[in-house]
């Protein structure tokens, strides 16, 4: 029995990927917690911006929706949605984007739109929101998702947002400015794209074997020769998450 939940483990490992001074295009839930954890630890100058048009948010309470009023009070700026997607994202002013979806494939393409055919959906999902452009234009993208086979098929049913398409060269040929998915953080470890754009297992969390990740991935998951073990979750990281950021466990209870 570990002393933390899967959600806490993923959030802490995602926070460690953020750098001081990063401009992060962030959603509610775990990405918001990861940014705030980074801000409270190694990245005090991290700047959070939200698709609703909020810049430099300093939420006093846990935001429960993407347009929560706590994001506005005390922020450094507010602008229209057209401005946030053009002046900030399209212009190239965003370092990091967080993405999520029902399915992520071998080349980091994400489906948040539909399971089954588009015109006759078996399961209709919410759709892109901001993610199609974030995935294309943020310098680095990160994903947090539990490691389950149904979430990691070899190919997604629909490209809501682009990873490396069928390989890194194919994304490069489109000329999109962003670097694509850099790390997929799961509850078992980290996956990163190799030189071809294929996601490979580069790290496992303490106590996890690479075979567990392979058994829960829908393609033949390669293990990087330099496979490492992620650093243990610290008491201080857990304290900040539990006592300061999500004291009611709204997002962190999971797993």
């Amino acid at each position: 029995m570990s002393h933390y939940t899967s959600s806490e483990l993923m959030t802490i490992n995602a926070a460690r990927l953020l750098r001081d001074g990063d401009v992060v295009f962030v959603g509610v839930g775990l990405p918001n917690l990861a940014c705030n954890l980074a801000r409270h630890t190694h990245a005090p100058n991290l700047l959070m911006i939200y698709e609703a048009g909020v810049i430099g948010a300093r939420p006093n309470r846990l935001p429960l929706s993407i347009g929560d009023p706590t994001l506005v009070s005390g922020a450094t700026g507010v602008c229209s949605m057209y401005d946030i997607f053009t002046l900030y994202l399209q212009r190239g002013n965003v370092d990091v984007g967080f993405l999520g979806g029902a399915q992520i494939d071998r080349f980091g393409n994400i489906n948040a739109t539909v399971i089954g055919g588009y015109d006759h959906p078996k399961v209709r999902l919410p759709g892109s929101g901001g993610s199609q452009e974030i995935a294309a234009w943020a310098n680095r993208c990160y994903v947090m998702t539990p490691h389950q086979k149904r979430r990691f098929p070899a190919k997604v049913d629909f490209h809501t947002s682009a990873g490396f398409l069928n390989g890194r060269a194919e994304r490069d040929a489109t000329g999109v400015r962003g670097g694509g998915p850099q790390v997929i953080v799961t509850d078992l470890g980290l996956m990163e794209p190799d030189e071809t754009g294929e996601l490979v297992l580069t790290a496992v969390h303490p106590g996890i074997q690479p075979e567990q990740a392979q058994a829960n991935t829908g393609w033949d998951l390669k293990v990087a020769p330099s496979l490492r073990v992620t650093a243990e979750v610290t008491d201080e990281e857990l304290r900040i998450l539990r006592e300061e950021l999500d004291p009611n466990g709204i997002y962190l209870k999971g797993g």
Partner: protein
Amino acid sequence: MTKICSLTDAISRLVQDGDTLYAAGFTHMIPFAAGHEIIRQGRKNLVLARATPDLIYDQMIAAGCARKIIFSYTGNPGVGSLRIVRAEMEAGRLEWEEYSHFGMISRLQAGAAGLPFMPMNQTAATDLERANPNIRRVVDPYSGRDVITVPALQPDVAIVHVQRADVHGNAQIWGIIGEQKEAAFAAQRVILTAEEIVDEDVIRSDPNRTVIPGFIVDAVCHVPYAAHPSYTQGYYDRDNAFYLAWDKISETPESVQAYLQEWVYGVKDRQEYWEKLSAETRESLRVTSRPAAPVDYGNY
């Protein structure tokens, strides 16, 4: 000239069956009171456009007001699935036209600016472009590279909720200003609901805060709490408990119809709706004050 009228009158005069409607406000100041009035007046065959259909369109679709939605994200924000929209789409009973948020907002921006379309950079994700023939490509005449285009959206009616407006419709908004200005300028007709109707001098004391000029507005309705269960910055909080409750209510058609009977058809207007909410709910939505530092425009 005063444009003050009741919301009942504004909807009756300015929203027709078959109209394309944009109820503005990205999570913030969603004009629920107007949506409920449209349901009460039994409008049909509307084309409902909004980046996030949210609970307002879930309810209007459940009430049989719509034939089609135009959207970019159909979730229940912060909760999960928007069950009615989803079920209608899966069953093939509701037409839809889908964009990313940026595509949707670019459509409004083009409509507001009087342009035929808006260009956007490529994203490398082309499935939506294949699924929606309104998303196209043109060659940039300067670089020779492809850019993505979306057509202007010019709704028949935009409905915008604001913190304060004068009787002429000069409207001031603060907090999240998502796409209210663009929706108002893009639309043929504009209905405002306002938390407060203020003297023209109040508007003139802070001209930079005016987002919508009165001359493009057709009706100004004084409707406090019009955005509940969404929120109005500085006036009341988002009713997150109701957003969660809707997830349960919308599980069955029976409970949805019971909700509409009690909270929409069963009340005359927003004031009756607000007073019908429990004192506990109203109290939980109260916000404490955090005023901005005043600015000095100078007396010239």
